[in-house]
């Protein structure tokens, strides 16, 4: 009982943290890169900073469906990467790609044995601080990313394992490539069960 003081993160909880991060990260990209009119976003306090979430019903719906399914997959370790791609509506060219790499970690072995399930023991505050640092970096990217001077849409591709079933309303996608791409790796954060790596690739224009 005395051990209960140590905080623990279950696999499910960790997947939730990851998906929450994805929600805010994707929304931040949509806002910061100016994909949608800023008035369609609403400010929200998260991780001790202000982040903006889209109010557009269709976008909200898309993200909710995507992330609930992704959470399921992350719990079952079926997903290795999610790619947010920004596409020029006119010619379908991929202009930018945000890769969110999910790595699975072992967590706290001792505690896991005790609890009889895989758990982590990382402090939630510490995790949130790490996420905040990533979010600040995401916001700062606009200082070097090229201006998206066209109507754009976005899509999210899920890199799943082969043994992963395709649920209803999901389909296989073609891999994308950016011509003359430049990659920038942002900070990573870890929940001690999942490690999240964020990489942005963009088309280098000279």
């Amino acid at each position, binding site marked *: 009982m005395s051990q209960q003081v140590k905080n623990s993160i279950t696999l499910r909880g960790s997947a939730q943290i990851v998906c929450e991060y994805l929600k805010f990260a994707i929304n931040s990209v949509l806002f910061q890169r100016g994909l949608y009119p800023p008035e369609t976003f609403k400010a929200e306090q998260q991780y001790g900073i*202000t982040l903006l979430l889209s109010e557009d019903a269709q976008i909200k719906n898309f993200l909710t469906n995507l992330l609930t399914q992704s959470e399921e997959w992350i719990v079952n370790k079926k997903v290795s990467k999610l790619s947010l791609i920004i596409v020029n509506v006119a010619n379908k060219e991929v202009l930018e790609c945000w890769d969110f790499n999910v790595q699975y970690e072992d967590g706290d072995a001792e505690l896991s044995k005790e609890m009889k399930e895989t758990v982590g023991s990382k402090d939630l505050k510490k995790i949130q601080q790490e996420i905040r640092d990533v979010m600040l970096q995401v916001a700062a990217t606009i200082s070097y990313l090229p201006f998206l001077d066209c109507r754009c849409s976005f899509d999210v*591709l899920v890199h799943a394992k082969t043994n992963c079933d395709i649920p209803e309303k999901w389909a296989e996608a073609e891999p994308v490539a950016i011509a003359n791409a430049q990659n920038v790796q942002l900070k990573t954060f870890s929940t001690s069960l999942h490690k999240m790596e964020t990489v942005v690739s963009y088309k280098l224009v000279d």
Partner: protein
Amino acid sequence: MAQFNYLNELNTLATIDGPLTRGPLQRWVKKSNNENINPSSNSSKNMSNINVSACSQSMQKLSVSGNISCNNSLLSINKTPTRNENKKGKKTPSKNKSPGRSTTPTPNKLAKTPNKADRFIPSRSNSNFDLCHYMLNREEEDEIVAQTVTGEALGRALADTEPGRLLQYTCKAPAAPEGYQNRLRVVYSQAKVPSTVKNTTRYIPQAPDRILDAPEIVDDYYLNLIDWSASNILAVALNNTVYLWNASTGQIEQLLTLEGSETVCSVAWVQGASSHLAVGTSSAVVELWDCEKIKRLRIMDGHTGRVSSLSWNLYVVSSGARDGNIVHHDVRERQHAVATVNAHTHEVCSLKWSPDGKYIASGGNDNLLNIWPAAQGQHYSQPQYIHQFSQHLAAVKGLAWCPWSAGILASGGGTADRTIRIWNVNTGANLNTVDTKSQVCSIVWSTHYKELVSAHGYAQNQLVLWKYPMLSRVAELCGHEARVLHLALSPDGTTVLSASADETLRLWKCFMLDPSKKKEPTDSKAAKSLLNMNSIIR
């Protein structure tokens, strides 16, 4: 040829069961040599064509057969195949054929020393053929190892993508509405943003009154490199040096130069007409200088990162640094660090005590603006903030307290934010917000008018005058060629000085008083301070 010698030697050394090529000839060889002298003598020409140095023995052995015409082919079949194959492949056919077709006899290969140049390789001596050849051949042996290594890497690379199924959700999110234009254009383009400049009755000169050179000013958004004292002395930090510019006489004095690669990161004058200047440096210390005597009074440590912001409250100087901490130094005491506040997770890029000394506001690179109350009966702050404003979406650099209304604070955010916000720290309310469409580097309130002026970066590098409290634009002052990093207000309140990354300081007389309304007391006070200054500086 020399390049093969090395390899041959190596090969022969390595193959223990091969024919001996070193040491005294074996008996049977000697015997056969003797026997063969006669038969081979008639074809000595042929013999001479063959590289004797390395394989003389094998050739001699071959000659036992007496069939000298097929010397080479036999060599290649019977003896140490690798060596001869090399020879066959690499050596020009001229050796065998040239005698036959020698209408233009090619130069004898043997005569050619490896050091001589030919048409194809100008200088053989420079290329280490021995080594190159060895390396080339050795590669074959390593190939298996290399293959497994590359195979592994390839496997790993494939494993990343290969077992993957790329999935997408078929109900797509909509594209941006038709006709929508990315608002970020203002951040990226030089195009002039139409602004609603409100006409005022006052005349505001559009050109700077004076332009001063500021060579080597550090182009860093997070620093605070200028301050204008109540006694009309402007302190400017240029790279590792602090200069004092006497605004009334125009004289310039060099206060200090830091050694090595250290740079000055912030300067701040003590309140009142005293001549003490606090200097924050990249070596994480705050230096206190007496500018009258040009003498350093003390060095105060307490930080682990560069000191990028400073603010005075009577005898306490508060310093904010890259480590995110604020340290309050009581300059009178030996143990100067009276309080350390863990204020931000990133660099503290602006720090301002309110004029009444009740609050200190700190802006950080973590996009936060914190308000700290002064400790009971003290001139340093409590370790717990009373307000934390997280509405800015970028580093909070511009910070200024309203001089006429207690508890009103203006703050401005960086490139990702571009807004100026007005706060009432007594209630914690955000009174007003305006999107400036450009990075806000600095804010200063006017003391004569209900206005404030902000300094901006890309695209226009301008100063904007705002009417308080509506925050409508009064005027825009353009002229700087790079972002305007810092602002300072003259002690008489009429002139704003802007320091820009284009290495100039410009003086704008944008708050000039109407001559008819000119207040006597301010004028005389300013005059008095000028007189004081002359005596002090000289």
